[in-house]
Structures are given as structure tokens and as C-alpha cells.
């Protein structure tokens, strides 16, 4: 009963979040004002900001779930930790890919280059997204077992251990190669209308993430129960 009601909540939140995400795109094109050129090289492309920034913030939360799940499994071998780890990896990949795809599109239009090796945020997200892609692909291709879980949670922690190393390497690299600048302007802060659209975007992505988290979490719980039943069936047949 609890699972059924959670499933309904999950679907409801996913639908509301998804609608909000679409609304953000529409408002970004129709409601948010155009920026000036200069300082922006490609003013039309700035609208990608309304998805890029919420993608980044949401993926950060998903990476945190992955980290908490990895450390819980690594230290305590708790089943819920593993399910949280898998959920964090799936959502981290989804939203992380959103960041690393939308970022280079915007970068290409605005900076003339798709990737900046001196940008810490970009590199960190790129690296963590690569780690989550590895985890998701491996989790699907490897047989489930304590050894597989140990290795994958280790790789999850490994991804986070790389963040400070990446930070040092990137910041030193940046000192030699100054990072590209999005736009140089005397103005500070966002236009209120832009801020409105951006906030709608961020809240919509968060709601979407909560909905997807519930659904993914339930899917993994069901998968785990199904595996237990299959093993009981194996025991009945073999023994």
C-alpha cells in the first residue's frame, strides 16, 4: 500500500516537474528579455542558461545522493545505501549530461570554444558525469553481488576523491591559461524577469528530481524483491 501511494506521488511530482521544465523553456523564449550584444557575443544563445543552471544545481544534489549512498554501502553495507547509490548515479547521469551537453553548446556560441580546461565547475561536472556514466553502464552489465557493489561504490568514492585533485590541477592550469569570460559587463545581478524564469526553472527541476528519485528508488526496491523471489525459486528448483 505504501509502495502504491509512493508510486502515485512519484508520478505526480514527475509530471508537475516536467511541466514546469517545459514552462521554463517557453518562458525563456517568450517572457525573458533579450540581452545586449556586446557584451554577449551570441545573445540568442544565452537562453540556454534557463536549463543549464537548474541542470547543474540538480545534478549537484544527485551527486550528493550518490556520495551518501556510496559511503553508506562502503562502510556499513546497508541495502538502502546501495539503492540510494544507484538512484543518485542514474539521476546524476541524467542531470549531469544536461550540464555537459548544454554547457558546450552555450560555450561554442558565446566563447567560440565548447570546453574550457581552466573552468573548475565544468571540469568537475564533466568528471563526475563520466564516473556516473561508468557506474550506470557497469551496474547494468555486471552481475549483482557484494564484490560488484564494493567495486562500484569504491569507484563512486573515487570520483569524489578526484574533485580536490581536479580543483588543484585546474586552478594551476587556469593561472597559466586565464579562463574564458562569459561576458564582461559593469552590471551586476540578473534582470528580475530573467531571475523569475530561472527560479521557476530551478524549482521545476528540483520537483522533477524528487519525483524521479521516488520512482527510481521504488524501481530498485522492486528489482531487489524480484531478485529475492528468483533466488527462492532457484532454491526450490535446485534443492
Amino acid at each position, binding site marked *: 500500500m505504501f509502495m502504491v501511494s509512493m508510486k502515485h506521488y512519484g508520478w505526480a511530482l514527475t509530471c508537475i516537474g516536467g511541466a514546469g521544465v517545459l514552462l521554463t523553456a517557453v518562458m525563456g523564449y517568450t517572457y525573458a528579455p533579450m540581452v545586449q550584444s556586446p557584451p554577449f557575443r551570441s545573445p540568442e544563445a544565452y537562453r540556454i542558461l534557463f536549463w543549464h543552471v537548474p541542470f547543474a544545481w540538480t545534478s549537484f544534489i544527485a551527486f550528493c545522493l550518490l556520495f551518501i549512498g556510496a559511503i553508506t554501502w562502503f562502510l556499513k*553495507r546497508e541495502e538502502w545505501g546501495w539503492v540510494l547509490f544507484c538512484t543518485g548515479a542514474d539521476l546524476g547521469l541524467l542531470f549531469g549530461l544536461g550540464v555537459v551537453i548544454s554547457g558546450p553548446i552555450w560555450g561554442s556560441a558565446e566563447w567560440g570554444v565548447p570546453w574550457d*580546461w581552466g573552468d573548475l565547475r565544468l571540469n568537475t561536472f564533466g568528471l563526475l558525469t563520466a564516473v556516473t556514466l561508468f557506474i550506470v553502464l*557497469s551496474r547494468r552489465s555486471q552481475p549483482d553481488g*557484494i564484490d560488484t557493489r564494493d567495486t562500484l561504490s569504491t569507484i563512486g568514492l573515487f570520483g569524489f576523491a578526484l574533485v580536490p585533485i*581536479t580543483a588543484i590541477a585546474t586552478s594551476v592550469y587556469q593561472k597559466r591559461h586565464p579562463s574564458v569570460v562569459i561576458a564582461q559587463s559593469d552590471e551586476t545581478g540578473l534582470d528580475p524577469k530573467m531571475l523569475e524564469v530561472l527560479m521557476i526553472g530551478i524549482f521545476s527541476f528540483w520537483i522533477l528530481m524528487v519525483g524521479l528519485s521516488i520512482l527510481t528508488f521504488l524501481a530498485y526496491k522492486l528489482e531487489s524483491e524480484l531478485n529475492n523471489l528468483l*533466488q527462492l525459486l532457484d532454491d526450490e528448483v535446485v*534443492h
Partner: protein
Amino acid sequence: MLPLIQISDLDIHRGNRLIISEMNFELFEGEVVALVGSNGCGKTTLLESSAGMHAISSGLISWRNEGFEMKLVRDSEGRRGSLPPMGLTLQKNGMSGEETIEERLTTVLAVSGCHYDSTKVSQLLNYWGLEHRKSDRISQLSGGLARRLAVLSGLAPAVMSEKPRAILLDEPSEGLDESARELLVDWLRALASKGHGVILATHDPQIMLAADRIMEFDEKRGVSVKKQKHPLSNFDLPKPSGNAKISKISSLFHWAYRMEKRNPIDTISRFIPSILALLLIHTLINEDEISVAGPDFVAAMILLPSFISVVIPPALISRYAEENCGRWWGAVIGPKFRTFSSIIGSSIILPLPLIYISWLVITDFGVQREDLGAVSSWLWLPGIVMFSVAIAASALHLLVSDLRRVGASAASLLLLVLVWPFLELVDALVMIMNDGMSFGFSLDEPLSMIFLSFSVSILVWAISVYLPDS
């Protein structure tokens, strides 16, 4: 009397299913213990866990060392210790097809600290009908003969030792013919009579009859134990050869070197893509483009073939994957296995010559300037640091190879982090090309960039080597 192996309160999970629950077990001198039961009941898991090969959910495993003290091999907190000299035959043979029969046996005797010479090795092989094939590669043997060798490799460390040792055999009679099974039973009883202890997992009733204790695993009733009495055996085993220095790590180095010398797939699989990259650069980019692109591009092109050579997966991993060879080495070497494998598996020979070859090819494009003559005398420095990138890459590949289906995982996704050591080496080379070599430690000096590249690589290596075993 202290047992040879002691297992206390052992719990092992497979997925979220408890395979072994609160198991307490001791193997004493002079006994053969048979683990029996249907498929999937946990026989192999218990046997391999005894050798510290599996992570355990709770409990601890200890072995008696040659100084008659109990030493921890593995516990649920992640502590690990190496095994004392022992014999191990896995369900798969645990041998590489590149080894010769004689090499396999000498390797087994070397890692278990047994003194040996060619006569002794021939004598052992002769017992098992393998002496005439001793110079052949294992890949040339039939399945049955290869199994004979695997079983002999498990038994030999005890046969050649005067002190009691533990032997672990997983389904040893699988694939053996009738005469080899009889020989196995004779050797098992003779070894027990000499004080050695044996744990074996089997479905074979003939082998079960040779056991002093039969532990039957049953899903519903748990573990039941049946004891059998045996008279002392008077079977004539080869005489022990005395003890020698245990050389586990050097044996692993020698083994890896021999395999590569015999079939240099590692060198070739690293060299060909690097040279192809270099030839493509030479073909597709002309002198004008090189001159316009500037020193950053030139430096990157010089280091790129070398970088490609170091990030390619080591052949050692595919050698380890053959017949569970790596699991056998992992059990024998113990906790330091990953550390040494990452060094052995990395590209040692290629990075430096590749940098010089690239330099010669690229400077042929017309970027020669009079002041570049001094650069070539410092190219060895990024070449040496490239070796640290190589061991970091090798450690990352090994981390991925822990997964059961190694080929099904994309290790290249984790190699992204090595872009930064590469970029910093490129920076260092640019500085050397622009201003010559200098020895200061500010950010604008090549030495600091080289040091940073080295540090990042070593940190990545340390994390990938020590985190999984922590």
C-alpha cells in the same frame, strides 16, 4: 595444537542474499575436509573466502604462519594480511596459456618458498604424466592434462615442504580421468598422513571417500558434519626439498616479464596506436599549419603519442582474466597485489622513445629554430613523468578489472582525470621550448609544472590502489 586455518563467525552475502551464515570452522593438521552440497550452496565461496579472496560481511579468517602464530588474513572491517605458503587450485585452472608446464610448477614452488631444481620438478611432473610435455605451453595441453597440472600446482607446495601446510582445492577431480582421480586420492591421504591439511570442494563421491570430515551444505538444514576414519597412508610421495626464500613479488615480476617477452601484445597494442597517431599528424598537418598553431600545439603533438601509449589497457589485465589467473596471483600475493600489478602492468619502455620519435617527426616540419637544440636534451624529463601517468592509468584499469565482466565496462571514462597531468606536461614543454630549462619553483617554471603533473598522477594512483583495499 593451533589449527592451520581458523574461521570465526563468518557471514558472506551474494547480492542481498546471505550465502554463508555464522560459520565457524577450523582446519587442523593431518585432516582432509570435503565441502559438499548442491550448486550455489556456498562451497566455492567458503573455500575462496578461506584464502581471503572475498569481502566478508562479518567475522574473521586467520591462518597459522610458519612461526606457529595465528595471523589475520581478512576480516569484515577491511583488514587484510598475506597468506603463509600454501597450495591453491581454483575451479578454473588459474594459469596463463603462455606459461610452459615447467615454468608453472617452478613459479608455484618459488612463491611458496620451496627449494627446487630441475630434477625435482621433473620428478613431480612425472608422477602426473606431464614430464614429457614440460617445455610445452599450457595452451597446447588438453583440458584434462591442464587440470592435472593445476591440481599438481595446488598440491606441490605441501609435498615439497617439511612443515605442515594448508591446501585449498576447488573441484579438483573435475576433468580428470580415472587414473588421475586415483592418484589424487592417494596424494590426499599421503599428505594428510604427513600432517598437511586439505580443504576441498567436490561433487565426486570418490574424492569424498578420501576425506576425514565431510561438511554437507543444505539450504534448509544448514551444515551437517560427517566424520570418517582412515589408516595412515604408506603411499610414496616425492621427498620434501627443504625451504627456500619466499619470492612472491619477484616471481610476479618474472612471470609478467616472461609472458610479455614470449608474446609482446602489451608493447604492440600500445605502440601501434601511438605510431598511427604520429603518422596521421605527419600526414594531415602541414608545415604552415604547425608554424601558425604555435608552441602549445607543437608540445601537445610531441607528447600525444606517448600519452596514448600509457592510457591503453595493459595486457596484464587480459592475462589475469585468462582462467582466473589474476585471482590465483591475487590470493598468493595478498594485499600488495594491486600495488605491484599497477606498476608491472604500466608502460615502462615506450613513453620515452615515443617522445623522442615525435620530436624528430614534428621538428622535421620546420619548427626547427636554432634555440630548440637544447630542448631535445630535456625531453627525458616529461618522459620520466609520463611513467607516473602510466602507473596511474594502469591502476585505474585494474580498479575496473575488479568487476566480474571486465570487458563489459568502459574504463576509459575514468581515465579523463589524466588529462590534467598531460596538460601540465604540455605546459612544461612549452616553457622549455620558449625560454629553455630553468630550475625555479614558481608557476612559470617548467619544474613546478612537471612536479604538479607527477603529483596529480601519483595521487590518482594512490587513490585507485589503496581505496579499494581499505
